[in-house]
Every structure is written in C-alpha cells, then in structure tokens.
C-alpha cells in the first residue's frame, strides 16, 4: 500500500501503536480502492483509541468482504455468507451490546443479494458502522453488473446497463439509518473524517464509499480495458491477468466539485457538501441527492445525521450487561417460577 501511515512509534490513548490495528496482508488487486478504505479504518480506530478486543468486524462475501481480515487483527471477525452480514451483525450486537460493531460489504452484497436484510437493518437502527465499498461491479466472479451500476455503464462483454442504480444513501436516509455519508476511496481526508465521526455515532452509520475496481470496471474502447489489454499485451495469461494500477487519489475542498479519472478512463464528478451544510434535515438531504444525481454529480460528505433516534438495543430494553456473559442466576429462573407455570396448567 502506498499511503503513508502514522509513525509506528506514536501511540494512542491506550498506548497502542498503529501496528496493533493492522491485520493480515491484503490479497486484493494492487491499486484497489478497497485497500485505501482499509487504511482509513486502521487510522481512525487507532486515533480514536478504541480497544481492538471490543471490536467485532463482520462482512458478507466478495472482494470488499475479505477486507476485515486486513485491519484490526486483534479483533474478532466474522466473514459469513453472501448478502447476510446485516443479520450476523444484528445478532452479534444483541448478544453483546458492549461490542463495537463494524461491517464492511460491497454493492453486490448489500444492494443485490442482501438488499432485504440491508433495508431491515436500516429500519432497526442497529448500532453499527456499516461501510459499503461500492464499485458497481462483481469482482470475484469476474465483472458482472451490480445494482449500483450507473445507467450507460458497459461490461467488458459490451453489455450496457439500462436500469437505474439503487442509491444506498437515499435508502439509508429514508429507512432509518441515523448517520448517512458518501465518500470516495481516494479522498483520504474526507473519508478519514467521515469514519471518525461514525465511530462516535451511537446509532447506525451507513457509509457508501465509491471505490473503483482496477480490474473489471472497464468498457469496450478503453485503452485500459480487460479486452484491450488482452489483445495488446504479448505474454498474456488470460485468466490470471490483472493489470497493475496505483490507487486513485484526490483532494478537494468543501463546497466544490472535482472530476476524477477512473481506471477505465471514465470520469467521476465528485461534489463535496459545503462546510456549513446542516445534515439534520432529512428532506434537504434527499433533495440534494436527487439534484446531484440529475446533474451527474456524486455528492459526498455526511449527508444526514439523527442523534436522537433510539437504536435496536434501546428499543429492546435489555439489561445493561452483555447477554452473552450473564450468569446462570440471571438466565435460569428459580424453582418457584416453574412451579407457578405448572400450577396454572393443572
């Protein structure tokens, strides 16, 4: 990874070095936007001084869902089944309300196969930091459309997507998430600050991070497309071929628009919310997202925050301690309770 991480000698409030927040080495393609997100997660957890043993990392299936192995190696992780990270994460939070839950999934996971679970997680306001590494494409199965692919985007087979994408931020605002943000994997400063904010949010944070795929988000005619490279590179191993790119990086100010060139040569227009934007208005957030969409912009920043809505844990009126470690004296009623139940049935 090319990003410089904070000096290894520096320690956080717990006396831990950033090294303590790293995981195993990434196995994703070089230049993958997901790796940038992994680095930001390492930074913010370290900076915030969150005890790694308190963190539970959960994911579904796909490139993005592999990433919990690459950060916070001292935290428990659960890489479950495709599209079902919300269920696993909800269950984990029920069992232990003291856990710090972080979910990393992709657009296929969250918006295609797992859309139902995603919606119901929003509705429940499960206290989680939920990161969607959104590249509009299925990487592990070699480049099929996901439901976040833009209208007009092309597969390497030449198939053009004609269906409108599902916007996870609109869904999040509408369905009950209490912090909704969008960023770009290459915008270190913004992604960092969004994640830091999310770590201190007590409800459900939905963070949609546009994260370009170096390998499969290409199209016919692009000089960097899979097909082009296959035809023009000489010693080519068809299946294993993965072009090497360095990460896309971008830095721009609040209230401005920035055009970014993607791996496939296409352009992404990022529009950052102004510094004085008030994220507590649901109506305004929804209107701005629609306006940006009509203008062909990707609106970034913290779009919506609600600091008052009760979380699922609040709603269940559970004891303050984690259910997971309650003693038998708390979980098995006494003899008189059973006798009462029996007497009613005699």
């Amino acid at each position, binding site marked *: 990874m090319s990003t410089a991480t904070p000096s290894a000698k520096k320690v956080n409030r717990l006396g831990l070095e950033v090294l303590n927040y790293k995981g195993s080495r990434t196995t994703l393609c070089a230049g993958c936007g997901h790796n940038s997100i992994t680095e930001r997660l390492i930074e913010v957890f370290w900076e915030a001084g969150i005890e790694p043993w308190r963190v*539970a990392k959960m994911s579904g299936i796909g490139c993005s869902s592999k990433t919990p192995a690459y950060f916070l190696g001292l935290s428990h992780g659960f890489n479950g*089944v495709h599209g*079902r990270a919300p269920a696993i994460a909800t269950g984990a939070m*029920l*069992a232990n309300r003291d856990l710090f839950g972080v979910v990393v999934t992709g657009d296929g996971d969250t918006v295609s196969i797992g859309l*139902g679970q995603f919606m119901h997680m929003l509705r429940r306001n499960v206290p989680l930091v939920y990161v969607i590494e959104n590249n509009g494409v299925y990487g592990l199965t070699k480049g099929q459309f996901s439901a976040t692919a833009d209208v007009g985007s092309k597969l390497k087979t030449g198939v053009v997507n004609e269906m409108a994408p599902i916007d996870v931020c609109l869904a999040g605002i509408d369905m009950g998430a209490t912090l909704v943000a969008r960023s770009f994997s290459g915008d270190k400063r913004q992604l960092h600050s969004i994640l830091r904010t999310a770590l201190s949010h007590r409800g459900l944070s939905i963070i949609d991070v546009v994260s370009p795929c170096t390998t499969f988000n290409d199209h016919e005619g692009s000089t960097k497309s899979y097909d082009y490279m296959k035809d023009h590179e000489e010693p080519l191993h068809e299946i294993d071929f993965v072009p090497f790119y360095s990460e896309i990086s971008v830095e721009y100010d609040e209230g401005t628009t920035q055009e970014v060139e993607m791996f496939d040569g296409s352009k992404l227009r990022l529009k950052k919310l102004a510094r004085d934007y008030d994220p507590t208005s649901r109506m305004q957030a929804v209107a701005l997202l629609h306006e940006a969409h009509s203008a062909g912009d990707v609106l970034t920043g913290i779009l919506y925050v609600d600091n008052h809505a009760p979380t699922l844990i609040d709603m269940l009126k559970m*004891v303050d301690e984690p259910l997971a470690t309650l003693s038998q004296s708390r979980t*098995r009623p006494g003899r008189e309770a059973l006798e009462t139940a029996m007497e009613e049935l005699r």
Partner: protein
Amino acid sequence: MSSAAMSRASCPPTTHSVVNDFSIQVATVNGSGSQTANNVLMRSIFQMGIPVSGKNMFPSNIAGLPTWFTIRANRHGYIARKKEVDFLIAMNPESAREDVETLPPGAAVVYDEPLKLKDLRDDLHFYPVPYDKLVGPVCPEAKLRKLVRNMIYDGVVAHLLGIDLDEMRKALFKQFGARKAKAAEMNWGAVLAGKQYAEKNLVKTDPFAVERMNETAGKIIIDGNSASALGCVFAGVTVLTWYPITPSSSLAEALMAYLNRFRLDAETKKATYAVVQAEDELAAIGMALGAGWAGARAMTCTSGPGISLMSEFIGLGYYVEVPVVVIDIQRVGPSTGLPTRTQQGDILKNAILSHGDTRHPILFPSAPDECFKMSITAFEMAEHFQTPVFINSDLDLGMNNWMSDAFPYPEEPIDRGKVLSAEDLERLGGFGRYQDVDGDGVPYRTLPGTNHPQAAYFARGSGHNEKAQYSERPDDYRNNMDRLARKFETMRTYVPKPEVREAAGAKIGIVCCGTSRFACEESRDQLFSEHSLSVSYLRLLAYPFTQELNDFIDRHERVYVVEQNRDAQLAALMRLEMPAERIAKLRSVLHYNGLPIDARSVTDSIVQQEAL
C-alpha cells in the same frame, strides 16, 4: 319443538356401556370460536382423572372452513389419535353429511336440529339440539351468540356422557381466567341451557360414558410448543430471532410471554434476553448465528419452508462451528404442502442440511415433558459441541393439547462448553480456534469482547486451518473435515439414549421417533392381544444414532421403522451408516396423510407385512 319425536334415536338403545374408552369429534367451522368449548370439554374429562388427549384438525384459513377437534378419553392411557370416531358433535352444515356417513355403526351424533341428519342412517344414535332457540335467552347480545352457542354442546355432552358439572364449571372458569369472569358466567349459562335441554328432551341410547378415575392427579395439560418455550426459558436462552410460520409461531409467542414473566431482571425489570422478529428465515437464522458466535444462547424456531431457506446459513454454522438451536415444528411438505397438518418430513433434510458434507444432531421429542427437557439438552449440546442443533417436533405435538407429567426443574448447572477466558488465554499463551486439543473433535473458542490480545480469531465460512486462517491447502481442508466428523462421532456418546422395551422372545421389533410413539405403544398391545405377537420397541430420542440401535436390530429378525412421511426418511438415515446385514432387516411402516399416526394403521401394516 317436537321433542318426543326428535329425541327418538334411529339405533336401538344399547344394553352394554363403554366407559372411559371413546373418541369425541367436534365438527365445526374455523373462526366460530369453538376452541374454548372444546378445551373446556377436554379439561372436564381430564379433571375427572381420566387420561385424555385432544387433536385439532384445522384448515390453513382464518375463518369459514371445516375444522375437527377430536378428544380421546382412554382408561388405559392410550393418547394417540383414534382412527374411529365414536361420538360426533356435528356443528358444521358443510361437512355434516360426510361426517355422519363415515361414522362406524353404533356411534352417537349430537347435531344442530335444522341439519336433519337422523334420516341419513339407521345404525347411529342421534341427538338433535336446537342451538339457535337455546342461545337467545342466555346471550342477549346477538353478535356474541355465534361464540356462546358452542358452549351449549358442552352441556348436552356433559349430560349424555355423565361429566361432572362441577368439574366443567371449574374447567370453564380456568379457561376464561379471573379477568374474564363476566364472559365466563354468560358461557356457563349456555352450558346449563344445554344440560337442561338434554335432561328434558334427550333419551340416552348410546353406550358411551365417563366414570371418575385417578389417573391424572398432578398432571398438566399443555401444548408442545408452550412446553418447548418453557424449556428454552429454563435453558437460559438469551436471544430468540424468528419469523412467523405455522405451526411454530405459537412457540415463539409462548416463549415471549414466558420470558416477559420470568426473565426480567429482579431489580431493574430489564430483559435478560432479546427477541427480534426477523424479516425472513434467512435473517432469523443469521441473527441467531451472529448471536451464538458472540456468546448468546441463541435460537430460532421454524417449520419446513423456513428450514429450506436456512439451509445455507446452517452450513455456515456447521463449518464455522457456532452454537445455535433450531426448533423445527414439522408440517406437511413439499412446498407449501398442508401447512396445518402434521408430518415427520424434515428428518433426513435436517440431518444433512446445506451443501457439502454436513451432519447435524437432531433431538426427537415425543411429548410435552420431552419438549421441555430437550430444549435444555439442545442448548447444552449446541454450546458443548459448538454446532447447530435441531429439535424435530411436529404440528401434532406442537399445536395440540397433551396431558403430561409436570416438568422437573433442571438440576444440572448450565454448561457453556469450551470457552476460553482472558485468564485462560494468559495461562495458555494463545489458542488455535480449530485445534483438536482434547481428541474429541471439539475445539476451544473465545467470545468477541474478551479482553486479551490473543483472544481474537477470524470466523469464516471459507476454508481455514487450525488457527482459523484462510487456507485452500488440501491437508488443511481434509484435516478439518475429518475433525468435524470426529466431533460428530463424539456426539453419539452424549445424546439421549433411546427408550427400549424388549418383549421376551420377540422376533420382530418396532423403531420409531417423536410423536409416532403413542401409536406404536398402542399397536404393540393390539398385536399382542389380537395376534399373540410379541413385539419389541425402540424409540429414538436423538440423531446421531447410538449403539443401542445397532444392538436392537441385531437381536431381532425384522425391524419395522414406523414414521410419518412417504420416503422412509428415518430408515434412510439408518441405511446411510449401517452394514448390509442390518439394512436387510429393516421394513417400513409409513403414514403420510396429514393426520397424526394412529395405532390401527400401524397394526394393519405390520399384520400385512408379517402375513398374519
């Protein structure tokens, strides 16, 4: 009312009497509120000390379709469904003619007078009752009459069978509870109206009667789902995630009610549990697995279609080794099947649910006391072996009212299994999540939130080595799968052993599981008394099977595996692991028409196969 003419039965009066050995069937329309009247009738007989069972055969519909409630009273304690109906209470105009036509000769019929049923046959005892005329005076409120008129037949039957009215009053007030005393009084008025009408207008000609016994003292009446729920409460369940599906919804609902009563913290009144109604069965099992991984005693309850949806997640639970309890109230499949009828249709599927090589333990409760006990056993097993554990109950057990011994308080302390604490990790200096330290195939685990740098591991449904690291190495994969097989072998010595009743000199035996029990027990007595055939008996309480099953088969020439499905699933599961000489001894008795299995069907099949 021309009472003299109407009360003349077609069948001549019988001279003998049949005491405490008959079945009553109430044919009605669902949604008409007959359930209360039926439960009061059943409970009255129960309170007279007579062994009794009740079975509700209802349609998958809210209101308007035929429903039959059968009460069997039997002095010998036989509580399986009785194939023949002795005493029909015909309330449903739609089904009345067919109900009457299928009765055996000598049966009694209490019917709504306008249905004019007595002309249909001359070999039955008919008792007409003008419900509409009787209900008016006892229930001034017209819209309640539909409900209250059902109580009239309780009064009529009490008179005809000789049920103690004091017991019926007690049963009725218990059914309504203290808060509905006014409604209870009105309904009691209907019972009395029925009783008085019968006294004045009906001449008893049928032989059926009840006489007080002392066989139900201390016993309870409960449905299997409530019993399972109560078991979960005392097993220390902490997370229930579920999705409504007949016939398991009443389990979740009973569990929520019991949790709310018995599991609020004494001081803070906060819940020592969490219940979430999920959006579907995928989410229900996913949440339960997430909770089990994070240390909860987690469960879900469902039925066949839900099991099909849970298949992928169950494979994850097996491979990642997460404790979870899945209570399957089996109903008739395939597909939607008959949602309100019973079957043992998920035996084979649950044993090997999900893709790849998987094996899951199953417990087979046969009665409410076992529903209670096995809920506790299932949670202990799930955490001891770190794996999904199934309880295969069924609709007959789950949704019907059963007479049962009171449940004993669980004396064994809760065992959370091989969970390493921060102190353990400090002492050990670390651990390998999937390492077989003890040689029993059961590894050690840590819970998320354990404050130790060595506590964490990465749970994944993809290939992994002993340290829970991603691995596609052939030896890592194979070693892990072999250890999982070893773990399953260890379960054979842990699961509840079968119930065995050996008949001296018996050449043949019966093997069954779950609710086939009562029909099999009664059938053994029929085979002996009608054909002088001694039959041994083994009832399986769990899968994996134990050595007792092998020994039982070896001791007999032929073994009849009795089960409630078409494809002999239990026998198929036995064939999967048995040598040819044992398989050669297996025969099947299969019952799969949606109704609970009855003794006569078992007896007939064995008699035919034995060419007696």
